[in-house]
Every structure is written in C-alpha cells, then in structure tokens.
C-alpha cells in the first residue's frame, strides 16, 4: 500500500480540540486527527492551545505521520475514511518464534491470523503484546498465539491451527474470543477504579 502525506499545514479542529492532516492511501484521501491529549502526552505540547499543538506537531511531524501510517496499514480507518490518533492508540508488539517456521505453512497461518487479530484489536487498544509460538510435539503440534496485556497483566493463550486443517471462520471466532478475554479483564480493572 502506497501511503503519503501531502506537505500542507494541519487544520485545527475546534470541536474536537485536535489537529487534522491529510493522507493518501493508494490515491484514496484519508483525514487523520491527532488529539491535543496525545500531542501533550507524547509529543511535547505544553498545553492544549492551538499554538502549542501546532509547535508539537511540527517538531514531531515524522513520528505523528508514522503513527498515522501504522493505523492506515492496519486498516484502522472508520467508514468515513478517518483515522484518529489518541492517547489510547494501539501499541502492538508482534513477535514470531523460530519454531513457527518448522510447521508446514506455519508462517502463513500465523501472519494471516495476525492480520485478523490486528483488525479486531483496533486502533485504541493501548499496549498489547502478541507472540506466535509453535509446538512440534504431538498431539499438541500446531500454531499457538499468546496475547498479553502489560496494563492488567492478563495473559491468554490459544491454539490457532495445524497444517491444512485450519478453518478460517473457526479461527476468527477463536481469536475474537481470546481478545474478548483481554478486554473483559480491562473492563473489570476499570470498573474497580471507578468512583
């Protein structure tokens, strides 16, 4: 996918207190929004004024655009072709163990499942670690995924497949269930933090 960012000044969006800048993904126009909170927390804006936000954006333009590019590549674009960069933006760490390549088509299985998982994790999941491992020992041979949440310390592990016996729909459901477990734990923690 060809992604570019036209060299024009960002637009200040008063209603959302954020800066908007355009991107082109394979020629398709996309509007990217970076919030004042993120510019303040991650890119050095000293306050939530337009001037301060513009200064932070200008000095960290490459980083902000890289973040937007990541969102576009992962398909985290809403139905109105908008990308939102917030303090809760997903910081996804994906690793593949060497053993994955020992399983026939293991890497294909893992990358395909990761694409689906990335889609359901979405753009506002904060820090998430995903590790793809493989077991070659019967009867548990196959690809496994381990999802860990650095915030809640929740850990989920699930079997994804083995060789050609993989059912895409079943895996999608299974991965969604694993991620649902992570979000459920977050909800539980957040509920504990309420008032």
């Amino acid at each position, binding site marked *: 996918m060809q992604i570019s960012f036209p060299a024009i000044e960002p637009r200040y969006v008063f209603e959302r207190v954020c800066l908007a800048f355009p991107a082109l993904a394979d020629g398709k126009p996309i509007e990217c929004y970076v919030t004042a909170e993120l510019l303040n927390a991650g890119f050095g804006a000293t306050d939530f004024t337009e001037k301060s936000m513009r200064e932070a954006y200008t000095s960290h333009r490459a980083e902000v655009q890289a973040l937007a590019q990541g969102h576009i590549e992962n398909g985290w674009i809403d139905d109105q072709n908008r990308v939102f960069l917030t303090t*809760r933006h997903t910081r996804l760490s994906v690793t593949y163990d060497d053993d994955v390549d020992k399983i026939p088509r293991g890497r294909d299985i893992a990358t395909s499942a990761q694409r689906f998982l990335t889609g*359901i994790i*979405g753009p*506002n*999941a904060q820090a998430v670690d995903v590790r793809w491992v493989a077991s070659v020992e019967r009867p548990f041979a196959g690809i496994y995924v381990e999802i860990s949440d650095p915030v809640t310390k929740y850990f989920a592990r699930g079997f994804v497949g083995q060789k050609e016996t993989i059912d895409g*729909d*079943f895996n*999608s*459901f299974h991965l*969604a*269930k694993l*991620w*649902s477990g992570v*979000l*459920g734990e*977050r*909800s539980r923690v*957040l*509920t504990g*933090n*309420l*008032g």
Partner: protein
Amino acid sequence: MAGGKNNTQRIENLESHAATLSARLDVFDKMIDGIDKLLEKCSKTTEGHDEQITVIHQQLLFVDLKQTLATLSSLKEDMVAVRKDIESLNAWRDERKREKDEASRRRWAFGPNIVAALISGAISILGVGLGVGLTYYLNRKQ
C-alpha cells in the same frame, strides 16, 4: 472529591471505560459474525448429510424389506410343514378314537352274554335243585 479523584481523572476513567466497552461490543460483533458463518457452513454440511442419510435410510429399508421377505418365505415353509404335522396328528387322533370306540363297543357287547350265561347257569342250578328236591320228596312220600 469522591474516591480521591478530580473530575478530569474521573472523566478520563470513564473515557477509558467507554472505549473498552465499545471495543468489547465490536469484538462481540465479530464473534457473532464468526458464529453466523460457522452456522451457515454447518447448515450446508448438514443439508448434504440429510440427503445422504435419506439415501442410506432407503437402502437400509430395502435391505430390511429383502430380509423380511426372506424371513416370511422361510416362515411359510415352516407353516406348511407344521400344517402337515397337524394333519397327521389329527389322523392319528381319529384312528386312536376309532380304536377306543371299537374296544368300548366290544366290551359292552361281551357283558350281556356273560349276564345271560350267569342267569342261565343259575336257572340250571335252580332247576337241578328243584329236580333233586322233588325227587327226594316223592321218594319219601312213597
């Protein structure tokens, strides 16, 4: 502030909560989609199996019918044999009955002869006794 938090912190917490709940709803949507697809797939598979089961059922029924026919045929043969046995048993019973009746008839036919012989014997003895007595009486009188 309640819970030791100011309004900003509380709003941030609520924002996080709302974002997490929204994400959970999205995942549930995906899960429902997955279940839908699996159901559709399973339905298609089951549909195919239904037809196969019908064919197998018909075949089994045919096999059953053939076996039933064979059993019926065998039963028919057995029935014929049993009927023959019953007929010969009836004939034997009739013969036995006839023999019994004949024996009874012979027994009853022999009875009156004996009675007649006994009466005849008694009369003879009585006649002899009367003869002897009469002779003796006449001899004494002379």
